[in-house]
């Protein structure tokens, strides 16, 4: 039963107040993109056992989507941040690096 802090309203929201939305920082491929790119965008999800960036919506709260960095093997949360960004913020990357030295980084 996760708790994630909503970066908009500061509530330490519990899982039942949130709805999960899958992998974060997906790049949308629309008309004109290659079959492979479109397939990757739609289906080939990162599914790491370890650090993962994902989308959550504070559905029963402020209704906003935010992003979280979380370890899928321990459920440790490294941080949350607003959805309006295409890359994880530097301080979250640094936090992860400190806690998971073997982590290969966000790519």
């Amino acid at each position, binding site marked *: 039963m996760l708790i994630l802090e909503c970066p908009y309203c500061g509530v330490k929201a519990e899982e039942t107040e949130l709805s999960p939305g899958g992998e974060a920082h997906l790049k949308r491929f629309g*008309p004109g993109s290659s079959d492979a790119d479109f397939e990757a965008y739609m289906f080939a999800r990162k599914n790491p056992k370890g650090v993962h960036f994902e989308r959550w919506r504070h559905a029963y709260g402020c209704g906003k989507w935010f992003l979280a960095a979380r370890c899928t093997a321990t459920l440790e949360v490294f941080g949350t941040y607003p959805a309006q960004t295409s890359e994880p913020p530097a301080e979250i990357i640094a936090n992860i690096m400190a806690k998971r030295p073997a982590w290969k980084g966000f790519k």
Partner: protein
Amino acid sequence: MSTRLKSGGRLIDRSASLEFTFNGKRLKGYAGDTLAAALLANDQMLVGRSFKYHRPRGIVASGAEEPNALVNLGSGARLEPNQRATTTEVFDGLQATSQNHWPSLEHDVGVLNNYAARFLPAGFYYKTFIHPRAAWKHVFEPIIRQSAGLGRAPKDRDADRYEQAYGFADLLVAGGGIAGLQAALVAARAGARVWIVEQTAVWGGRAPVDGDVIDGMPAATWVDAAVTELASLPNVTLRVRTMAAGVYDHGYVLLDEKVADHTPGDGRPKHRLWRMRVGRIINATGAIERPLSFAGNDIPGVMLASAVRDYVVNWAVSPGDRTVVVTNNDDGYRTAITLKEAGMDVPCVIDARVRADGALPARARGLGIRVETGRGIAKVKGGKRVEGIEMCLQAGEGAASSFIACDAVAMSGGWSPVVHLWSHCGGKLTWDDAHAFFRPDATRPPITHDGSAMVYAAGAANGALHEALADATHRAKIALQSLGMTAETATAPAHDLPEESPMEAVWIMPQGAPIALKAKMWLDYQNDVKVSDVQLAAREGYESVEHTKRYTTLGMATDQGKLSNINGLAVLAGSLNTEIPLVGTTTFRPPYTPVTLGALAGEARGEIFQPLRKTPMHDWHEKNGAYFEPVGYWRRPYCFPRAGETHEQAVHREVLNTRSNVGLLDASTLGKIIVKGPDAGRFLDMLYTGVMSTLPIGKCRYGLMCNEQGFLSDDGVVARIDEDTWLCHTTSGGADRIHGWMEDWLQCEWWDWQVFTANVTEQYAQVAVVGPKARKVLEKLGGMDVSKEAVPFMGWADGTLGGFPVRVYRISFSGELSYEIAVPASHGAAFWAACVAAGAEFGAMPYGTEGLHVMRAEKGFIMIGDETDGTVIPQDLGLDWAISKKKADFLGKRGQERSFLASADRWKLVGFETLDGSVIADGAYIIDAGVNANNQRKVQGRVTSTYHSPTLGRGIAMGLLRHGPVRMGEVVEFTKLDGSTVKAKVVNAVFYDKDGEKQNV
């Protein structure tokens, strides 16, 4: 014979005597008794039958670890099977019956299994009943099933209620023994918000029973003082009868509070499930004594030594007149001493160790108790109760050296810390050789959301059997520190305990017992798993502890192996010639002890089982006999049957009346989403397959939405309200989903676009006034011009009708002249009533969703969920006209370009008319010639909507057919469930008013 002692009993109130029944027999107990104590006080030694062999079973333990004493508690709507007698408080009128026997507890035919036990070793069924094939289902399985199971299956609806509540704390202390109390004191004094919970009705745990002295006072006095202090602090919550059931991730803990188990029917909730969210958990759940494995250790009268002590001290019940104590440690002597001091006979303490020279053995000897060291029990004599034991050399093979008559055996095989809560979220254990137990490994705790330790074990649960208070103090301090609080000055009270010399692990008694004896040594009493079974599993290659568990069912009974697991592991390790820590434990899973399912579901039953969404007109529908259907959480009238009408007849009447007069539909559930902003038009052009940005103000346009894969996901009419505002109608089921979908794109993809949305679905009640006389009804209501000119087809206008502020949309889902009228929901019921009244003279009748479906099918309109199923694209439905060819992009466009979606061979929408006029069956497929590679009949299409059209007086249908539209006039065959087929002609899907004249008048 087990009896109530004349005096003593710290937990019972002799002035409050209670009556209860066991198997119909009326028995007496005292307030404060557990059912087990009261049964023993009445010499009810035999309490049940084991699972597999139906062996006689007596009470072994005094708490949650009890494997045997399970009863059917109560009856009828209050029947509770498998209720543990050791944790059930006796109340006046309690009814209990024993389980798993026929015809009676004393005489059970199932005991035949016992005589055949040799033929029923672990896993026997995997090896048998293989032939003949049909016999398994028809003969063997029914027999196995019939003899399986324990308690009676309840039949009635539960008479009790349950509830849940949320709790929050910095620190939750699970376990109200001295360790838990001390930890709570340390934390509470430091100002932390503390919860402490105890599963039993009393604080203090073992210490008051064992005569510990704390700070110079009897433990019970210290406990009282601690509880008084805690209760006085505003930052502390204390709860008894509250079990910490499970620890889940991120500090989520379930507590099961037994509010009214002991006062059934008093109107309070039976249980309350607390859902705690806490910073840290102190696992102060104590330790559980282990049985010893000797032949006949399951005969009623063989009990845990600590339990015997509990019964004497707490409830003044002596399980036997002559009790032999058998032990591998000093603690067991406490029982001998307690019994002796209570005036009972202890013929002998049998100590497996070669030497017993600690303080406790000395005291026992001083009381004149005979102590035999280096000895063990070869076997227990007796059937339904103990008659005596045969003592032998522990180091030998069990050649009996002497017989000792007794009626009870108290066994102590050492202790196992209760590490469940530590382990639920992955806390690791370490093997402690000195005490021969697993204890929490503080270096590998379960972690919480920020990666820090979530659980701290304290006291006996942490393996600190002798320095529980010091350990608890220490653990509480570091737990507080990790929360950023401090309790540096806290010190542990002085805790005086007699010195104890080391225990010696004894896993089998005697050490060299031959197989015949091992086959009588029980590990898991309830599931009938014996030492020989574990050894068999090992021999057959089920070497992993998890395999052994599953092959033998060791530890899978209702006690989850609280007594048996460690002994089983040790036996397995022995069989594999390896070390216990290398064998490891099985996984600890919630709940700690079983939790009533009703409590887990909480208050959600009956009326509030789920939210039921109601439109403002819901009550009117109910009063007017609506037959409802669920649409999401909404309930919508399916039809309004009149007396004597079937649902089908009602639907037909409603359709005909709407087509010839006027019908009223409650359309309030339709989703309504306002989209506004400078970029709103551009946004809607991305969302819909068509173009919405060009929609003129005052007009409506039908639109389709696809998901990114290209599949059709929702449809509805969009109205342009003003320069930068649109109102999007969605399907009833789609409102929240589509609103979420819009926000998703706005927040996560196009966050620089200036668009705001608002879901105003519930702001408006919406009434569809439909049929050739619809305009007359509105004119009757009066207040605005509803002429063709003022409100043309696919237009909308604001105004008033009958004095209500309304917005009127000229849209039609039936093909008739139709107005959908939105009014503020607070006026919805009144407006509906006004429509009904105004419509009366024009023959207005309400119609339901089924009539709506029939009419739209007559018109060939698609319905999301009927024509679509998540695999259908708009092009399949001939809706190409609603897809913009010009737009560079919209959600779903790229997906639709994929080869399978763009294929020319897709099934496409057409209409069907059976040659015989009958209605094609719901779900029917259109067969094709031949079979496929998997020998399945080939198909070329299927029906999507099929109805009897009351308007046309025949069956009509829509469906998908390969290359459909170019096959007009062809005859195809639809399946029927009786195996035959029905022929139908491919026709245009619009069956009624093909030119759309009626709606546009």
